[in-house]
């Protein structure tokens, strides 16, 4: 008997929306896969998973999942996710967006949500450039490389170390993987899902069309090979050493894992209890 082959993550995807907008060789498909696998293995009710994204290539992720999806404005998925999570603490609210969206235009929200320890998981897809708009320099573009707005090489825009930024701002879970390290990524998403608070997973992704092409990596496979050869797993690594220098080794692993830190929504609920207790004591009303 012949049975139609169904892709294992089919049920998590809006197949009717295929083909997607992502280029051949884009890392988003692998992130998609790792995420779906993590949800499946954790046995989480997909109805309770909400994807919030911003603008850019990875911002389109919210539109392809079969979960509730919200595609917000450029840089703003984090405050949207915060409002939604505070209103509905029973939901797993996940932000998937790019380095430009989360660290340039949305950088302020990123550090403040980390400071508050807002209970959301942020998957920061770092492809080193603005893919959607044609490959301009971004807040994580390594020094020296060429982009469409650094035609001589990036000599003017030093990159953020996103791992250290998240750690220093108060995130309770900070990990970095690449789209080559899918098993680690899946396990890391599972770990993050079981924690509470502001959790960041930086995924170093591939963009052969815009970034690779201008930096001697036009073939998608060469982009993956670059990640395989340069990413070095370190146990309990120091966030301060997570800088990425083009052509050199860089660290992947779990940088921060703090259990028991009170999340923002728990603080809000505690505040409500305090206010209501005081109100009952007073006869002002």
């Amino acid at each position: 008997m012949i049975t139609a082959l169904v892709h294992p993550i089919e049920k998590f995807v809006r197949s009717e929306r295929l083909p997607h907008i992502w280029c051949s060789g884009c890392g988003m498909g692998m992130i998609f896969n790792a995420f779906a696998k993590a949800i499946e293995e954790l046995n989480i009710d997909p109805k309770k998973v909400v994807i919030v994204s911003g603008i850019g290539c990875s911002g389109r992720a919210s539109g392809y999942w079969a979960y509730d999806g919200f595609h917000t404005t450029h840089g703003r998925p984090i405050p949207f996710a915060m409002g939604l999570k505070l209103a509905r603490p029973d939901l797993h609210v996940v932000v998937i967006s790019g380095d430009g969206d989360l660290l340039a235009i949305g950088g302020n929200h990123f550090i403040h949500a980390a400071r508050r320890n807002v209970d959301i998981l942020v998957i920061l897809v770092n492809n080193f450039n603005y893919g959607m708009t044609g490959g301009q320099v971004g807040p994580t573009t390594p020094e020296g490389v060429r982009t469409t707005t650094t035609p001589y090489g990036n000599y003017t825009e030093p990159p953020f170390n996103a791992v250290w930024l998240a750690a220093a701002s108060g995130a309770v879970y900070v990990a970095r993987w690449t789209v080559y390290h899918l098993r680690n990524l899946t396990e890391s998403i599972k770990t993050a899902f079981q924690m509470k608070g502001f959790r960041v997973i930086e995924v170093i992704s591939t963009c052969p069309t815009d970034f690779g092409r201008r930096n001697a990596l036009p073939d998608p496979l060469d982009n993956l090979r670059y990640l395989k050869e340069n990413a070095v797993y370190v146990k309990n690594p120091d966030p301060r050493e997570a800088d990425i220098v083009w052509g050199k080794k860089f660290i992947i692993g779990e940088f921060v894992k703090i259990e028991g830190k009170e999340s923002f929504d728990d603080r809000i609920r505690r505040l409500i209890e305090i206010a209501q207790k005081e109100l009952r004591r007073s006869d002002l009303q």
Partner: protein
Amino acid sequence: MMNLVGEVKPGMYFWSGNDAIAEAAIFAGCRFYAGYPITPSNEIAERLSWRLPQVGGIFVQMEDEIASIVSIIGASWGGLKSMTATSGPGFSLMQENIGLAVMMEVPIVIVDVQRAGPSTGIPTMIGMGDVQQAKWGSHGPYEIIALSPSTVQEAFDLTIMAFNLSEKFRTPVIILADEGISHMYEKVVVPDPRDVIIINRKLAKDPNGYLSYKADDDLVPPMAPVGEGFRIQSTGLTHDERGYPSADPEVQNVLVRRLLDKIRKRKHEIIDYRMYKCEDADIVVVSYGSAARSAKSAVDMARKEGIKVGFLQLKTIWPFPDEVIFELAKKVKKFIVAEINEGQITREVERASKGRSEVFWVGNYGGRWIFPEEVLGKILEVK
């Protein structure tokens, strides 16, 4: 989230306009506020930081006005009636995401306590210069609802109306307050909740075959609760009935036309105004917000002089009451518009009167009130 602890009791109160807006928000069911400090709106945030937790609601002071408006859009999707308050500079920062709320069709209320501008202007003094910005401030074609109170009681009543309209039409509603009303203390009567109609959004019931943006006959799509398997799709991109992005001009056409029509075709359900001594009037003074108080006094003064002058107070600014102006324009010879800006509503009255009446402006550019004598002076000048 509703919790009867901490609800304001019916009765008489002595409140500022900002107090009244904050209490009316709670009265209307608002349970989420996010904002960023800015004069002259601060008392709204301060009062809600005290009062919202008492009723089980959430107050968050955000890192900026952009985060403020975006987080109330998220919270409203999460099912909580949500509000932010700001003044001119913050209102400017919010414009892009007012467009997001229009496009995602999210009920939110934005209070703009206007001060003298442009730019930082005079932060502590009155202005009414954001009226056209409220209509056109976000990019692209859209319709918006904006209400403007002239008394502290109206600040209370129109805030409830703002929440009701936002829920009914799934749209952002702007309260165009100003420093005058917001910092003025007056008597407010809080009604018995049983005597007030509170409208809640229309909710989708069946996830099977649910389409995020398929509107009913009233042009408003039912809103699905998040996390219940409706597979909601919501985006600021042009989208079809499923909520899926599209670059097809016909999809754009159908979506934008509906977004415009849901307000344009039902504006009789939105427009509110007050007419005073207009029956036999040769001249009608049109005003709104704080300026309306001086305009009304001037009309009374002119009547004592035997001049046939009437008064039209606009409570709904957007959508603009074109028909009300046009009907008056058939009868009266002249309109005078009193406002604390360069004539932002004057040009609307000119447009809506279609050349049938002469239209004059009286006012200043902000930083102080209009005095009744100034409006009277204009009446005497043009009569």
